């Protein structure tokens, strides 16, 4: 009975993980922009790999293999956001174009590519003195 439940749990986890990986690949292929592509790739590929490695842990059910699988999952959860942040920052600095229908770009004109510094946005008091609020 216990082995049967483990088999079904491993099969379902592995299928879900593979589906997330396929969705990540479709997003990377089809989305219009580098930054939207990264949005698709980083999150769903991390979740897909985590699901497949948890399926490995459930299937074998030994302490050593479970430790290794959880180690890889924790490593992905730690490193994928860091790597994605560094690539996005480098791409923005090197001038990768945004999608033409992009609604908001908070870094517009505030990032100095020469000195790698970020100027802070104008303070709210200056905003209030320059333009009227939405209530008036």
């Amino acid at each position, binding site marked *: 009975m216990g082995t049967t439940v483990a088999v079904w749990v491993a099969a379902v986890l592995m299928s879900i993980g593979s589906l997330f990986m396929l969705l990540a*690949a479709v997003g*990377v292929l089809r989305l219009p922009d580098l930054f939207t592509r990264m949005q698709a790739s980083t999150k769903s590929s991390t979740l897909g790999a985590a699901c497949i490695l948890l399926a490995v842990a459930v299937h074998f059910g030994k302490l050593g293999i479970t430790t290794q699988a959880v180690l890889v999952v924790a490593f992905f959860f730690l490193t994928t956001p860091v790597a994605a942040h560094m690539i996005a920052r480098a791409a923005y600095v090197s001038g990768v174009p945004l999608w033409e229908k992009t609604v908001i770009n908070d870094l517009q004109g505030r990032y100095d590519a020469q000195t790698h510094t970020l100027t802070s946005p104008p303070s709210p008091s200056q905003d209030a003195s320059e333009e009227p609020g939405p209530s008036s």
Partner: protein
Amino acid sequence: MNFPVAEPLAVAIIGSLIMVSVAMLLTFIRLVRGPSLADRVVALDLMTVQAVGFIAIYDIATHEPVYLRVAIVLALIAFLGTIAFAYYLERRGSQWGPQ
């Protein structure tokens, strides 16, 4: 196909191997086409994560957990490579200015 596992798991293994293979193929198309260098770095990073998933599925399929260590090393190398590519991209961008 004869896998040393139970019947529902064998079906899931075949389906998962096909899905991850198709995903690697689609990501490879983006790796070839990618308009900018950063697109290619993202695609390569995604391909290594998919390779880790493929190795994990292969572990279950053959009931042989040794290859999981390969997955650990591959994840480490992929992170280092991505960080190196990002550093190179940023230096290059600051040297040549925004395109």
